[in-house]
């Protein structure tokens, strides 16, 4: 790959990062806190592309006789030309395909990653109470639902069906990027909707129940939620739960 194509690839890569960073696209892949870094690195890549193109153009103007110098430079940077072609792949994946956030496939293959919360802050008095799915699961399992007694809570998550068809409401918890995303699962009981499609997002309203189960993958604890109503909902802006980051 010669310098002109390299400049083109750098430019496209920077533009793709800027595109992902300025829309909500990046939230499917990395944590929200990475946005300023994404934008800055996208800008640096574009500047590098422009600088490469400019110096190349100046060099071309300085003397036509210096063309062999180009071949000389290429010979020195040995595996660079061929391996660089691979950078087209993430471009293609990001711009043309834009894969969705991790969903039920990863959720059923990975065990629930619920961890004991540090504290159980008092909950506001609204009814029904909107609560993060991970927050609910933590309070239900490790605080035995003390702060949840007698409350109607509203959770949002996507549906994942176990191998034997057991439905879970899931939120993927993410620390840095989708490679480290792990599911937190809540099992459902009560008025479960009759038809559940994996990966559909639901907002469910329900109450705490002391019933528990174990994740078949890693034996982790899974609390139950007794559903009173459920409604489909669009995918949230940030599909992941990032409460670990705060």
């Amino acid at each position: 790959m010669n310098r002109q194509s390299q400049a083109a690839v750098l430019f496209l890569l920077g533009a793709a990062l800027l595109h992902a960073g300025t829309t909500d696209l990046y939230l499917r892949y990395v944590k929200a806190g990475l946005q300023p870094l994404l934008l800055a690195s996208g800008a640096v890549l574009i500047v590098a592309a422009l600088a490469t193109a400019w110096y190349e153009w100046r060099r071309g103007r300085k003397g036509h006789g210096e063309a062999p110098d180009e071949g000389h430079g290429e010979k020195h940077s040995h595996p660079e030309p061929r391996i660089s072609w691979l950078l087209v792949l993430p471009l293609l994946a990001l711009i043309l395909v834009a894969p969705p956030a991790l969903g039920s496939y990863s959720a059923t293959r990975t065990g629930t990653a619920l961890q004991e919360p540090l504290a159980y802050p008092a909950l506001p008095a609204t009814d029904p109470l909107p609560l993060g799915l991970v927050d609910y699961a933590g309070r239900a399992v490790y605080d035995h639902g003390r702060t949840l007694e007698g409350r109607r809570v509203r959770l949002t998550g996507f549906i994942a069906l176990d191998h034997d068809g057991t439905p879970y409401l899931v939120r993927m918890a993410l620390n840095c990027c989708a490679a480290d995303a792990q599911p937190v699962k809540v099992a459902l009981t009560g008025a479960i909707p009759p038809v559940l499609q994996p990966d559909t997002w639901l907002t469910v309203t329900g109450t705490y129940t002391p019933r528990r189960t174990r994740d078949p993958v890693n034996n982790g604890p899974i609390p139950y939620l007794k559903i009173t109503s459920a409604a489909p909902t669009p995918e949230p802006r940030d599909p992941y739960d990032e409460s670990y980051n705060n």
Partner: protein
Amino acid sequence: MAITKAAPRDGDTHADAAAPAPDEEPRRLTSPLALTLLLLLLVLLQSPIRRALSAPVMQSWTTVFVAVVIQALPFLVLGVLLSAAIAVYVPPSFFARALPSRPALAVPVAGMAGAVLPGCECASVPVAGALVRRGVTPAAALAFLLSAPAINPIVLTATAVAFPRNPEMVLGRFVASLLVACAMGWLWQRVGRTDWMRPPAHAHHEGQTKGAAFWDSVRHDVMHAGGFLVVGAMAAATLKAVAPESWLRTAAGNPVVAVLALALLAVILSICSEADAFVAASLTQFSLTARLAFLVVGPMIDLKLFAMQAGTFGRAFALRFAPMTFVLAIASAVLTGAVLL
């Protein structure tokens, strides 16, 4: 479709074949033309490509692949900028004065200096390459390479947050990582041979202005290390999407197997060192020592890093360096775990 698909690859080889013989008439498929054709073809074929990637396995593969690349690119760019600044603006005499002249002493100093590079492992590879190019003794540069992603304040803070009930994990991670970094540095100084390490090749900067040299270095490093980053991301995504997690459960029972399993998992998952503590914290069925092994091995050697090290220092180097680091990291983690945890 098979015929049209073959076209850009054909052009690719043509362009490569043309490179060593620049005197030939440039009438063949050159790389800008090949790139244009490739991109055009991909845009034309986007609906079949999307259909092929719509299976859940492929979707999850693509998501993880894109996520690893996007997450690593800002840190790679940061490392590349630093490395270009070192290569162009910092005179070699600076390192001669900053580091002790005896390599045996320079190794721990460079290892401790890793604490100031705030980033994950993708940033440290190009910086270590620039240090070697700038005349820093390779043993010290390697100690820096290994320690920087593991013991910088951001990573240690993340570890403290992830293990709120085991603050000794932070100390354990710091001690064990620094131990491996210094041990590898000293080992390299003892038995390392210069011909194993391909001196990081770089375009010559003489006759260039400083600005031209700086951006030339940035371009070269992004294209080069970025390509290897893509290789590593593909490997990590493949294993994450295909390997079942249930085998971990059986491994947790035996203390020896548990350590080996998590060390191997750290290599395979290739998680950013700023996030791996949270993953380790969630592997509750494993002993603390096994999880410490996960935290020590991950930032020093994983699939993505191996690819990038092979790219920067040569394959002969990476093939010797990576297994040795892996073994020493496990040993150091077990030792530290036995004393501290």
